[in-house]
């Protein structure tokens, strides 16, 4: 029998319920408001009082309203048909909802249960299988979507039968398995999983050893992210977090992109589902939307569901990773999730930590980032989740709990600088403060030696050195004046400007410049480093300034031209010409 209860207190979306039976932490319940069922999650229990956070507006709720507990935690539905979908934070399908406005208590099915899928068996009778092993496959768009032994199956099973190739609905039985006690269990193409629990189903999680190409130069060239790695993008408002994430979603060399719009603007989600169907995936030539899932809890949607949205996104990522796919998970912005935790914690009158955030914020963030990673599956194949979150620090000040906690959890730091954004030097990733810890991994260094060229990381280090020296020179020039410093300072400064304008700055809205393949990145870096290696003899600093501005201008024209096109070669010729008379 289900536990029931009665509402005894209401503050915004925190509701206290007096219960008549057992309840579990994180259990889901429904509150009956004149026939409208409001979904809520248990976040604290004290005696026979449960505190629940309601995923909807609590307007009109009264003391004494009835509550029914469900016996399960917040869970998502997994199965073919997730790709190209637009879900809210609780995995309701936004596309199938009626009306222009979101209605309270309206819940829609995540997956289409009528659709027929072309199923091909992968396992056969007699096979021994465990959770997450592949039983069959359907084509989801062009991706092979594996039908797996449900994640919650414990121990080893024997396959009794798998249905023949053919068309099936997700709720049809496609396999029958026998457990150790000889009991038979049926498997369909769909299963459920609680979002706050990490999906296992792999044998090991080695250190990331490959680089994920993103087409963004200041990432790939300077601070690459590993496949299965983690990174974060903190930055004041308007500095380019979302534009950078959208660029990653468009260009990254991943099979699946999951974007969690967490407490941000609805128009940014509209941008994705309007533009992605039209854009082509540069790696496969397919429409970008085909590989994308949007989880959308915009800032005006219920706060509690905001917290759920990032977990929903991660769980879908884990599902595809278990199929051996390369998943890129993007969350914008994880600060909004932390704020949702703060709002709840304050209403619960918990002892606040720094800036009013819950004291265990750091642990919550670390646990979440730890769910990403590169994994080896039972069958020897591999899959990965690369996770990049944005952080929106209050007042743009990085000394705040969310940034500091995330710094401990993520391996790449792409800090956006207000100063660069003000100067429209986009992407405003600060080249001095940002880092990728992966550049220190021997396996990554080796991978880059192989993939790009031997000694590549040394070149990267050298580039960073040029940038730092340029910054020092610039500070000296500012203190001592143009004429107060030796000529070499000007040269140092302008060499770093060359790197800045040609390598770091990249116009996300330009069709050509917006995305740079690795090969082209190498070509341009070599070119720029070759110029930086030269020593010049200028009579005065104005000559130096004019000369470098000329070079920068030509290189930028190259960035805007199709790689190795006639135009590109023309500018390259011009550059060589310029370099002759130094």
């Amino acid at each position, binding site marked *: 029998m289900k536990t029931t209860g009665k509402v*005894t*207190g*209401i*503050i*915004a979306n925190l509701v*206290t319920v007096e219960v008549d039976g057992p309840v579990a932490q994180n259990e889901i319940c429904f509150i009956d408001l004149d026939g409208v069922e409001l979904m809520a999650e248990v976040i604290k229990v004290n005696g026979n009082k449960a505190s629940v956070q309601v995923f909807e*507006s*609590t*307007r*009109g*709720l*009264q*003391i004494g309203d009835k509550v029914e507990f469900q016996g399960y935690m917040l869970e998502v539905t997994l199965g073919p048909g997730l790709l190209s979908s*637009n879900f809210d934070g609780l995995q309701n399908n936004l*596309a199938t*909802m009626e*009306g*222009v*406005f*979101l209605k309270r208590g309206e819940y829609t099915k995540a997956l289409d249960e009528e659709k027929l899928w072309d199923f091909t068996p992968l396992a056969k009778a007699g096979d021994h299988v465990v959770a997450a092993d592949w039983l069959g496959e359907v084509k989801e768009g062009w991706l092979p979507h594996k039908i797996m032994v449900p994640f919650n199956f414990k121990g080893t099973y024997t396959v009794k039968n798998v249905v023949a190739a053919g068309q099936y609905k997700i709720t049809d039985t496609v396999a029958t398995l026998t457990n150790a006690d000889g009991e038979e269990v049926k498997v369909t193409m769909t299963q459920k999983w609680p979002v706050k629990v990490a999906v296992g189903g792999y044998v090991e999680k080695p250190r990331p050893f490959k680089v994920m190409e993103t087409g963004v130069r200041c990432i790939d060239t300077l601070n690459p992210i590993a496949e299965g790695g983690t990174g974060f993008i903190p930055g004041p*408002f*308007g500095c380019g977090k979302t534009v950078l994430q959208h660029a990653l979603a468009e260009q990254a060399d991943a099979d699946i992109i999951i974007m969690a719009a967490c*407490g941000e*603007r*609805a*128009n940014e*989600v*509209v941008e994705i*589902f*309007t533009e992605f169907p039209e854009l082509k995936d540069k790696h496969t030539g397919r429409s970008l939307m085909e590989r994308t899932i949007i989880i*959308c809890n*915009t*800032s*005006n*949607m219920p*706060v509690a569901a905001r917290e759920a949205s990032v977990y929903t996104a991660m769980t879908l990522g884990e599902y595809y990773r278990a199929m051996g796919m390369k998943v890129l998970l993007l969350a914008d912005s994880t600060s*909004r999730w932390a704020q949702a935790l*703060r*709002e709840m914690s*304050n209403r619960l009158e918990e002892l606040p930590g720094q800036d*009013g955030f819950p004291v265990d914020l750091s642990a919550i963030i670390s646990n979440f980032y730890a769910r990403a990673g590169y994994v080896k599956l039972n069958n020897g194949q591999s899959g990965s989740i690369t996770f990049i979150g944005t952080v929106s620090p*209050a*007042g*743009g*000040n990085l000394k705040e709990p969310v940034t500091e906690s995330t710094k401990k959890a993520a391996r790449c730091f792409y800090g956006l600088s207000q100063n660069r954004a*003000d*100067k*429209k030097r986009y992407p405003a990733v600060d080249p001095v403060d940002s880092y990728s810890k992966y550049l220190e991994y021997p396996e990554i260094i080796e991978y880059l030696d192989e993939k790009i060229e031997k000694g590549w990381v040394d070149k990267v280090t050298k580039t960073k050195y040029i940038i730092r020296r340029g910054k020092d020179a610039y500070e000296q020039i*500012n203190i001592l*004046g*143009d*004429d107060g410093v030796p000529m070499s300072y000007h040269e140092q400064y302008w060499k770093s400007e060359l790197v800045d304008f040609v390598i770091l700055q990249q116009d996300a809205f330009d069709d050509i410049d917006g995305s740079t393949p690795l090969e082209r990145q190498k070509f341009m870096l070599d070119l720029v480093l070759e110029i930086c290696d030269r020593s010049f003899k200028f009579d005065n*600093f*104005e000559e130096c300034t004019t000369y470098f*501005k*000329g070079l*920068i*201008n030509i290189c930028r*024209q190259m960035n*805007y031209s199709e790689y190795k096109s006639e135009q590109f070669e023309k500018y390259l010729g011009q550059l060589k010409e310029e370099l002759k008379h130094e």
Partner: protein
Amino acid sequence: MSEKAFQRIYTKLSAITKATVTLEAQGVANDELALVAGRLAQVVKIKDNAVTLQVFGGTEDIPTNAEVTFFGEPPSLNVSDELAGRFFNAYGEPIDGGPAVEGEKRQIGGPSVNPFKRRQPSQLIPTGIAGIDLNNTLVSGQKIPFFADPDQPYNQVMSMVALRADVDKIILGGMGLSNDDYLFFKNQFESAGALHKIISFVNTTDQPPVERLLIPDMALTAAEYFAVDKNEKVLVLLTDMTLYADALSIVSNRMDQIPSKDSMPGSLYSDLAKIYEKAVQLPDGGSITIIAVTTLNDGDITHAIPDNTGYITEGQLFLRADPDSGKVIVDPFRSLSRLKQLVQNKKTREDHSAVMNTSVRLYADAANAKTKLENGFDLSDYDLRCLDYAKEYATRLLAIDVNISIEEMLDTGWELFGKYFTKAETGLKEKLIEKYWKDKE
């Protein structure tokens, strides 16, 4: 607000703070309205039988035996075409001497539009002000505030923008508006002959601050009626959102919530987002555009109110006095329209974004030169040209008193490039230079 026949009347308050009262009552619903000693109040917290209400008019001289009656419903507004041309207070009651509005009663602060039912904003809103049209182009369905110190003429600029914009309705939500500014708006609308398309909800400085909390929701409920039901293009003006946020903090601090940065409630982000996210482009042509004002304290945008606002809105228009040109300008560095790329070069000339970027970059070079000058260093020839350029750029393009077409703005941009710089110094794409470059006359 009418009272119902079967009202429950209570007369025993157990607690009173500056903004709230608490009493024992039964059958009360969250968010519902009540009258406390004749003042409108709303339920904000219920614990067992203890009900806490925020009293919009403030709790001054409310006695513990004050009469409390509950309405059984949350705040609402009667919507119909009759709203047009009318002036209301924070409760939606007429203040223009006219009759009450007949129409469908709608709860304010209602649900949000399904993100999937939205459309991408794509219609340019020209204002004639180059600091906006050229550098920070506005798009219908956008939400954007003016960031300005209290001594800037933000209300004037806003009314100018509103009257020049091609929209069907303009809805003014005035919060803590000085009486002079209220009359200024009224005057402007009247003399422009635009009263028939204007609806105003006004709370003036002499009225209780907590009342202001109702203004944005009232204005946006009216806006949704015209945009959703009537497919109209609606422009909502909200001034001053800083005073709105101040009112929020008064209530939350009285409810013993743990304040976060700058003594603002921890929910400030969500509270503001609920308002701004009502900006929308609807599939059937209707739209709600929100232009707001957030006054700053000494230009400090790291304060919690502008900071949270910046994280929510689609850019900001930063007004400041420019000592070199002696004009109020739209600061090109701190201002931003996030949606500008949806219309630039598409609905405007192909060189728009290039001219915008280059002119701002050169203006930044001028700022560097100025720093050099202030530090007592010699200026190079380039520096000097930048400074001259900056002055002319500020006067002819950034100043808020400019009123020209976007085409003229672009032409002026090219004229200034040619006048002060070489082609290479501008770094513009060759394709554009060939077509638009103007040599110095």
